C-alpha cells in the first residue's frame, strides 16, 4: 500500500537526494579505490585481526578444558544444569516406557481429540503407530530393528527441549516487546543463533556438557528458540493501539494491559511460534545424534555410513511423521486457544474425568495386567529393501540426464560465478553493499554492513596457521565465503524462480494447494542427511549437490510466504478490481501481486535465511566453502576454525538479510 503511494510523484526531490547521495559516495569510493590501489583481487591475505580470530577461540577452548573441574561456574552451574536436563530426559524415557505402547498411543489420540477434531485424532494414531510398524533392521541401539524405543527417546529429547525453549523464549519475547533496549540487544543475538550452523557450536557444547542428552538438548534449544522470541514479540507489539488505549482509558496499569489485553491477544502468534519451535527442533534431530543423544537420528547417520539409501529414507520418514504429528496437534491447540468459546467441543467436568480415568485404567491394565512394554516386534515390518531398490532404480534412470545437467551448470554457471566473486576486489564489494544498504535503510545500516563485509575478510587465520590438529588445512575466510556466496545466490535464485510461481499456483488453485501441502511439510522436516547420498549419486560430488540441499530446504518457505501474502489481500480491493472488469490474470498481476509485495519481500528474506542455515550441508557433499570449514572444525574438534568460519557465515547472513529488508518491513510485520 505504501509502495503504491510512493510511486506516484515522478520528481520527489527528497527521494532523489536519498538515492543519489549514497550513489555519489559509492562512485567516489570506487574511483578513489581504483586510483590508489588498482583493481586488486580478493582480500589481502596479510590482513588478519591480531593473531587471527581462530587463534582466540582455540585459546578460550584450551582455558575451558583445563579449568573444567576447578572452576565453580563450569563445574557446578553448567554441570548441574546438564545433570538436570539429563535426568529429566531419562525420566521421560522411562515414563513413556512405563505407560506402555498402548498408553502412549491412547494418550496421543486423546490429546489430539481434546484439542482438535476426530481427523486430528486419527492422524495422530496413524503417525504414532508408524513408529512401531515401520522397522529398520539394525537401525536401533545395539542393532535392534524396532524403532519404537528410539522414537520415544527422540520424543523425550524434543519434549525437554521444547519446555526449555518455552521457559526461555516467551519471557524474552515479552521483555523485548516491552523494552526497546532489550529488543535491540536481542536482535543480533537471535540472528547469530539462527544463522550460526549447529556444527560450529557442537564442540564447545560437548566440552561444557559432555556427550549425550544435555548436549543434544542445548544444541536444539539454541537453534529452535529464536522464532518463539520473535513471534511473541511481534504478537504483543501488533495488538491494535485502540484496544490498548481502551484498556488504558479504563485505568488499567501497564502491567494489567500486558497481562489482560496484549498477552491474550498475542496467544495465536505465540502458539504459532511454539509450532515453529517444534518444527525447527525436529529438523535437527540428526545433529543431536552427532553428540551421542541417540534416538531417530542414529539410523540416519548409520545409513550415511553404509550408504544405505532405504534405511536413511525410512528413518527420515519416521522423523517427518513425528514432526507432522506434533505439528498438527500443536496447530490444533493454537487454533483452540484463539477460537470463540461457542464453537469449541464442550466436555463437562464429569466427562473429562471419565476420559482421563479411562486413560489411567487403560495404562494400569496394559502395564500390570498385560505386562506390555514397548511396541511388540512382531507387529511391524521393514520396507527398507523395497525403498532401497526403488531409489536405486530411480537414480540409475536419471543419472544420465542429471550428470550432464550437473556438469553444464557447474562449468557454465557456478564456476564462472565463483571465480568472478573470488576475483572481485573486496573494497568494491563493500562499497556496493554500502550503497545498497544506504538506499534501503539509511547511513547507519550502510556503516553496519560495510563493517560486516570487512570483518568477513579479517576472520581468516594467519598464513600457515595449522590449528590444533595434526594435519594441515587451508583456510581463507574470504575465498571460502565467496564460494559459499555463489552457492547461496544460485540456490536463492532457483528457490524464487520456482517457489514464487508455486506459491501463486497454490493461491489460485485449491487443488495445487492440496497437492503441495504434504510435499512442503515433507521437504521442511526431512533431515538433509537423508538426501545427501541420493543427491551425490545424481549430481556427483560438488557444487550442484550443495546447491540442491539448500534449495530443497528453503523452497517451502518461498512457496508458503507467497501464498500467505496473496491471501492477505483484502476482499474489497479484489472485488473493486472485478467490478472494473479485470480478468483473473489482470487481477493477479495488477492488484494482488503489487499489494502482496511486502509479503513477497518477506518471503525473499525468509528464503535467504533458510538457504544460509542449510548451506553448511554443502560442505558434506563436496561443495566446499564455509560449510566444509565449519564441518571440519567440528569433526577435528578445532574450535577456532569452526567458530571463525561460523561467524563469517553469520556476517554474510546478516548482510544478505539486512539488504533484503526494507524499513517498513522491519518496523511492522515480522
Amino acid at each position, binding site marked *: 500500500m505504501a509502495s503504491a503511494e510512493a510511486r506516484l510523484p515522478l520528481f520527489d526531490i527528497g527521494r532523489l537526494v536519498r538515492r543519489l547521495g549514497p550513489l555519489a559516495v559509492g562512485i567516489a569510493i570506487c574511483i578513489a579505490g581504483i586510483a590508489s590501489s588498482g583493481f586488486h583481487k580478493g582480500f589481502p591475505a596479510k590482513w588478519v585481526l591480531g593473531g587471527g580470530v581462530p587463534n582466540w577461540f582455540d585459546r578460550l577452548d584450551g582455558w575451558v578444558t583445563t579449568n573444567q573441574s576447578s572452576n565453580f561456574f563450569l563445574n557446578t552451574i553448567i554441570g548441574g544444569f546438564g545433570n538436570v536436563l539429563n535426568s529429566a530426559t*531419562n*525420566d*521421560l524415557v*522411562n515414563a513413556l*516406557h*512405563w*505407560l506402555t505402547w498402548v498408553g502412549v498411543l491412547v*494418550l496421543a489420540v486423546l490429546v489430539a481429540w481434546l*484439542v482438535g477434531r476426530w481427523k486430528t485424532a486419527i492422524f495422530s494414531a496413524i503417525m504414532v503407530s508408524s513408529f512401531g510398524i515401520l522397522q529398520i*533392521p*539394525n537401525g536401533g*541401539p*545395539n*542393532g535392534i*530393528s524396532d524403532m519404537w524405543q528410539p522414537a520415544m527417546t527422540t520424543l523425550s529429547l524434543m519434549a525437554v527441549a521444547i519446555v526449555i525453549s518455552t521457559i526461555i523464549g516467551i519471557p524474552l519475547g515479552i521483555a523485548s516487546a516491552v523494552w526497546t533496549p532489550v529488543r535491540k540487544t536481542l536482535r543480533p543475538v537471535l540472528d547469530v543463533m539462527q544463522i550460526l550452523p549447529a556444527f560450529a557450536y*557442537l*564442540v564447545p557444547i*560437548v566440552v561444557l556438557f559432555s*556427550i549425550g542428552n544435555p548436549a543434544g538438548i542445548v544444541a536444539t534449544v539454541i537453534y529452535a528458540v529464536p522464532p518463539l522470541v520473535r513471534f511473541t514479540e511481534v504478537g504483543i507489539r501488533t495488538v491494535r493501539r485502540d484496544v490498548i488505549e*481502551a*484498556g488504558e482509558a479504563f485505568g488499567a496499569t501497564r502491567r494489567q494491559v500486558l497481562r*489482560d*489485553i496484549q498477552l491474550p*491477544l498475542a496467544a495465536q502468534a505465540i502458539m504459532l511460534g511454539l509450532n515453529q519451535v517444534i518444527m525447527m527442533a525436529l529438523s535437527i534431530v540428526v545433529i543431536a545424534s*552427532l553428540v*551421542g543423544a541417540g534416538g531417530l537420528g*542414529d539410523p540416519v547417520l548409520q545409513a*550415511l*555410513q*553404509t*550408504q*544405505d539409501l532405504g534405511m536413511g529414507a525410512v528413518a527420515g520418514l519416521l522423523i517427518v511423521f513425528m514432526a507432522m504429528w506434533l505439528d498438527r496437534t500443536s496447530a490444533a491447540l493454537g487454533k*483452540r*486457544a484463539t477460537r470463540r468459546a461457542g464453537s469449541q467441543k464442550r466436555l463437562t467436568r464429569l466427562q473429562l474425568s471419565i476420559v482421563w480415568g479411562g486413560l*489411567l485404567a487403560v495404562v494400569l491394565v496394559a502395564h500390570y495386567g498385560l505386562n506390555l512394554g514397548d511396541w511388540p516386534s512382531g507387529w511391524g515390518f521393514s520396507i527398507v529393501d523395497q525403498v532401497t531398490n526403488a531409489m536405486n532404480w530411480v537414480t540409475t534412470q536419471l*543419472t544420465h540426464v542429471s550428470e550432464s545437467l550437473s556438469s553444464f551448470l*557447474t*562449468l557454465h554457471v557456478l564456476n564462472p560465478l565463483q571465480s568472478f566473486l573470488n576475483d572481485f576486489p573486496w573494497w568494491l564489494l563493500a562499497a556496493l553493499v554500502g550503497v545498497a544498504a544506504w538506499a534501503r535503510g539509511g547511513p547507519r545500516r550502510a556503516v553496519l554492513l560495510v563493517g560486516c563485509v570487512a570483518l568477513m575478510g579479517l576472520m581468516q587465520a594467519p598464513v*600457515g596457521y*595449522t590449528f*590444533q*590438529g*595434526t*594435519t*594441515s588445512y*587451508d583456510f581463507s575466510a574470504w575465498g571460502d565465503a565467496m564460494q559459499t556466496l555463489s552457492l547461496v545466490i544460485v540456490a536463492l535464485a532457483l528457490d524464487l524462480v520456482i517457489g514464487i510461481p508455486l506459491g501463486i499456483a497454490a493461491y489460485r488453485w485449491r487443488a495445487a494447494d492440496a497437492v503441495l501441502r504434504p510435499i512442503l511439510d515433507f521437504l521442511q522436516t526431512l533431515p538433509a542427511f537423508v538426501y*545427501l*547420498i541420493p543427491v*551425490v549419486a545424481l549430481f*556427483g*560430488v*560438488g557444487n550442484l549437490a550443495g546447491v540442491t540441499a539448500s534449495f530443497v530446504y528453503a523452497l517451502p518457505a518461498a512457496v508458503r510466504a507467497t501464498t500467505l501474502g496473496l491471501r492477505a489481500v483484502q476482499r474489497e480491493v479484489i472485488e473493486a478490481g472485478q467490478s472494473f472488469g479485470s480478468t483473473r490474470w489482470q487481477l493477479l498481476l495488477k492488484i494482488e501481486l503489487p499489494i502482496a509485495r511486502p509479503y513477497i519481500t518477506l518471503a525473499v528474506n525468509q528464503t535467504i535465511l533458510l538457504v544460509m542455515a542449510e548451506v553448511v550441508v554443502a560442505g558434506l*557433499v*563436496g561443495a*566446499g566453502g564455509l560449510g*566444509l570449514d565449519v564441518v571440519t572444525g*567440528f*569433526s*577435528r*574438534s578445532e574450535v577456532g576454525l569452526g567458530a571463525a568460519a561460523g561467524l563469517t557465515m553469520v556476517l554474510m547472513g546478516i548482510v544478505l538479510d539486512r539488504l533484503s529488508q526494507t524499513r517498513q518491513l522491519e518496523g511492522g510485520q515480522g
Partner: protein
Amino acid sequence: MRDQRRNVRLPKGRRRIAGVAVLLAVIAVAAAAIAATAGGASARTNGKPTITLATNSWEGSLANNVVAQYVIQKYLGYKVNLVTIDEIPAWTAMAQGKMSAVLEEWGHSSQYSQYIKKGHQVSDAGLEGPNGNIGWYVPTYLMKKHPELKNWKGVKKDWKLFVTPQSSPQGQFLDGSPSYVTNDQALVKNLKINLKVIFAGTEAAQLTEIESDYKQKKPVIFYWYTPQYQNRIYKFSQVALPPWTKACAKLKPVAINCAYPPYHLYKVMASTLPKTAPPVAKFLRRFSWTSDDQNSVAYDLAVKHMSNGQAAAAFAASHKSLIKSWLNSKTPYTKVSPPPPGT
C-alpha cells in the same frame, strides 16, 4: 466494556486447556516418580556398570564394537551400549568418564598426549592388531591402462585424466571426511601436482562418487585406507608417494611432502574402567584381531545386512580359540609404544 474485557480473556477455552496441561503434567510427574524409583538402578545391571563403546563413522569401528559387545555380554555379564559419536568428542567423553572405551584409534597424537600422557584421564589399552594404511589410490582398471600411475610422478604427468567440472581447469583429487587424518592439500602443493583437493565432506559422499565412477570405468584418484570392507567389493591400487622418513615426520603439517606413516591402530579406555569393571578392562586390553577378521565382520554387517548379534555370533562360532585367548588373563598384550605418529 466489561463484556469486551471478558471476551479478551477467553476464560472458558483457556481454562480447559490449562486443565489438559495440568492433567498431563500430573501424569508425567507421577509416571516419572514411579519410573525414577524403578529406573534408578537401570544404569547398573546386577550391580555391574553398563559399558559404553564409541562407534565412529567407519564400518570397521562398528565391527570391533559388535564383537566386543557380544563377548562382554555373553562371557562377562556386563550390559554394553554402543554410542554413535565422532572421534574427538569420544576422547572428551572418555576423559569425563561418560564413555568406557574406543577400540580403534588412528593417530590422534595430540589427544594421546593431552589425555593419556598429561591428564591421565584416559588409559592406553594396547594395540588393536591391524596396521592402518592411508594413501592415494586409483581403481585397478585405471592402473592397468596407465601403469605409470603406480607412482606419484605418473600422477603429476597424467593430471589431465582427473579433470572434472568441479575442479576444472585442474585435476580433481577426491578426499573424504575432513575428520580423517589427511595431508593431501600439503602433498599436492609441495609435490607440485596440478590437482585440486576436493573434500567430499563425508566418507559416504566420497564412496558414492567413487562407485559411480567405478561403474562407468572413469578415471578417479582418491584418499583411501585399509582396513576397509569396501576393499572386498572394489579393486583399488595404491599410488606410491615419496617414502615416509623420520625427517619428513618432523616437518610442519603444511610442509609435508612424503607418504603417510604406518599407523598401528590402538585402543583406549577411560582410566576409571579398570576399577569399575576390572574383567572388562582386562578383556579390552587383550582384544586384538586382523584386518581380514574386521573386514569380514564389517562386510557381514554392511553388505549382507546381518544384525549386530548375528554377525558377532557368526564370527565367534568360527573363532573360538581367539575369543578364549581374549578372555585369558595370561595372554600378553602390546602397549602402544612408541606413541602414535603425527606432529
